[in-house]
């Protein structure tokens, strides 16, 4: 049986999925990149509840002191974590967040334009 090539191993802060069915909930954890996603981590650094609550908020809790310590020690960050830290103001905003925001805005604009056109058409029909 051919062996898989060895991957480079380093510490990383990333999300571990700890929800139930149809109810995602993430832990922000420090682990080795080669370990399974939900394996027992070295350290838990926070949580992320990706389902908005009744106040339309997504809750993120961060152990800032520890995260700063690990950042100083050159620990890698996964993209979602970078995104969260960027939104939280701990790091600069992640570039992809801007892009996604732009795309969303474009979509929204298109949708509003569509509805406006529809409305206008309806108006013209009515007037006719």
């Amino acid at each position, binding site marked *: *049986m*051919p062996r*898989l090539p060895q991957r480079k191993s380093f510490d990383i802060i990333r999300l571990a999925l700890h929800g139930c069915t149809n109810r995602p909930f993430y832990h922000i954890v420090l682990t080795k990149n080669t370990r399974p996603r939900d394996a027992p981590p070295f350290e838990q650094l926070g949580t992320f509840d990706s389902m908005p609550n009744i106040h339309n908020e997504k809750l993120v809790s961060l152990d800032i002191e520890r995260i*700063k*310590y690990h*950042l*100083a*020690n*050159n620990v890698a960050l996964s993209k979602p974590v970078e995104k969260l830290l960027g939104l939280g103001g701990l*790091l*600069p905003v*992640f*570039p*992809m967040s*801007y*892009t996604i925001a*732009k795309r969303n805005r474009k979509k929204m604009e298109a949708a509003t334009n569509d509805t406006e056109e529809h409305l206008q058409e309806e108006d013209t029909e009515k007037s006719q």
Partner: protein
Amino acid sequence: MASSVRAIVGLSFRSSCLSRINVPTVQSVRYRKPRWLPIAASKEFYVRKPTPIDPEEHEELESRYKHYRATVRGIRHYLRQELSKKTVTTKEKQELDEAAEFAWMEEEVKKWNQMLATSREQRQSEEERQEEERLQHVMQQKAEARLQRSLEAEKILQQNKASAVNFVTTENLEEEIEKMLDSRSDYNYAITKTGDILPGENPAVSEKRDQQTVKKANT
């Protein structure tokens, strides 16, 4: 792959036939290709369409990424400096603390030693005193014993001196011998109830014996 799928289906079919005895024997087995198997025949010439990239977006993203990475590196650098500052201070503080603790410990040890020394001196002087007392006592006892012994010896000496008057010496040896010989007595007798001595009927025997002894002594 197709064959293996068929096999699984067949298996499941057969097992479903067997499932007259209400036992759930059907188990869904999702087939996964092991890594060492070649690409499936249907996908042999499949090429994934690359995700379309908006050139405008891409350009913006690239410049943003560049800036982002530089910033993050700067932040990390800053944090590292902060951390090192903190650790340095903690290290210095630790050293200071250790020095202080060592000084304190020294002080304590000195105090302890002082205390021990005083108590030891006290104890030793006491012990010396006791030893001296003991020695004196012993000496006294010994002197007493010596005195006692000398007294006893003197007593014995006096006794001996007193008894020495009756000693037999070379001068009075003959005399004594004569005296002894003269004071010979015959015990071969009986005593009556009243204490009268009844001399033997045959004194010759004793006399003979006496004579023999005298002869021996003379020879």
